[in-house]
């Protein structure tokens, strides 16, 4: 079969070193059903790479800080105000949330030491979250660990009877804000709106229509403490009631 050869033993990650065009001609022979497909010079496509290889790898904090700073600068161009800027950061995070969700589940099904161990008791593949609480635990624990290497600091339900659809996830010291200094005149801005976008992506991916926003709630001990306010849509709350009545967990 004309499947591209697996180079499982090759550990080279220098995919981008040589332009792929130089290999294009020789690739025509090995992949006859795919004319014009550009394959990296070491012939490793993304499908040949293992998804768990970078599982315990951490990216450099300095490069993250630099990239995130650039993202904020990029989002800041031609914005009309702080709300607009936060919206743009949110939109940058959203597609990331959708991706992380699949990756998170893939990694927890394919390894014995489950990354979702806190939310699922069995070693069999974890279940998709059907209820709000399961979903929030997934975000609070496994998702936060995947992103920041630790769980979030608090998960609360709104005490007000008027807003039963509001939940709060607290991070005492969000990584994204560590190297961001907000000017005094923009004190309302919280760049963790990016993380709020990720949360929104995860919730939407699971079928929970949500609006998530990031708010500054500094304390003496934690000056950059951020609260992510998760507001579920009416349809979600209705379904939640139906599922509760039918005993779905």
């Amino acid at each position: 079969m004309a499947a591209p050869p697996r180079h499982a033993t090759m550990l080279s990650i220098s995919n981008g070193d040589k332009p792929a065009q130089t290999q294009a001609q020789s690739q025509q022979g090995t992949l006859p059903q795919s004319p014009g497909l550009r394959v990296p010079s070491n012939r490793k496509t993304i499908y040949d790479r293992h998804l768990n290889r970078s599982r315990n790898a951490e990216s450099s904090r300095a490069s993250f800080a630099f990239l995130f700073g650039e993202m904020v600068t990029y989002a800041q161009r031609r914005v009309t105000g702080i709300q607009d800027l936060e919206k743009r950061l949110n939109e940058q995070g959203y597609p990331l949330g959708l991706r992380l969700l699949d990756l998170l589940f893939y990694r927890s099904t394919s390894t014995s030491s489950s990354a979702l161990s806190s939310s699922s008791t069995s070693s069999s593949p974890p279940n998709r979250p059907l209820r709000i609480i399961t979903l929030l635990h997934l975000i609070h624990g496994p998702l936060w660990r995947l992103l920041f290497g630790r769980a979030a600091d608090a998960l609360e339900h709104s005490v007000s009877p008027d807003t039963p659809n509001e939940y709060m996830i607290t991070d005492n010291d969000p990584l994204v804000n560590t190297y961001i200094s907000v000017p005094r005149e923009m004190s309302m801005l919280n760049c963790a709106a990016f993380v709020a976008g990720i949360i929104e992506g995860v919730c939407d991916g699971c079928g929970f229509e949500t609006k998530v926003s990031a708010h500054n709630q500094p304390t003496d001990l934690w000056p950059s403490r951020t609260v992510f306010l998760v507001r579920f849509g009416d349809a979600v709350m209705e379904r939640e009631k139906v599922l509760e009545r039918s005993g779905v967990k």
Partner: protein
Amino acid sequence: MALSLRNPTLINRDQHKMSYYFTILSPTDTPLFNIAFGTSKGGGDGIARFRFPETAQYMNQFIIHSSLDILEEAQWTNGSMYLKHIDTYPPAAAYITAFLTPSGARFLLLHQPPHLPSSTGSSGLGASSLLGSAGSTTRASSSSIAANPTSPQTEEAVRQFMNEVYENYVKTAMNPFYKQGMEIKSPVFRTRVTAAGKKWL
């Protein structure tokens, strides 16, 4: 039953050849990928032979999409990703098996056992009842996954197939140039799905 005793090789060879139609739908029901293939196990040649070849191309899509209502009900009562056999369309003897990714993409596999020599002339209800009895004979005569679309062996084989496709789907989704809801055009992905079909079905 007497038939299978008289000529067991013929029955077995025919029963092995299941036809499959696999499709990936986005959470908003956009088709992202589809492929038709046949059984490769037990001497199968991997080529799909649907019962009604002239209409199969659109009927398969129609049958698969009509199972979405049932899928969306099952989605909120069963939290697993692999939802097993969810729907049957008797007129075409089509069985639908579903797998749901956490981000809402649906993998749907339609499997259709081949024509039985005796059921060629009959239609609709008659064909499905004949199929039922034929299914029970072959269950006894062979443990092939193609013999019975709802047997535990088949469900397990399809689970393996789905998991392998899921792995490749995640790799597609992690591609920074891929946005959720885009058609999957990668020939490498197609090769991978074909290989998974060969390996498990």
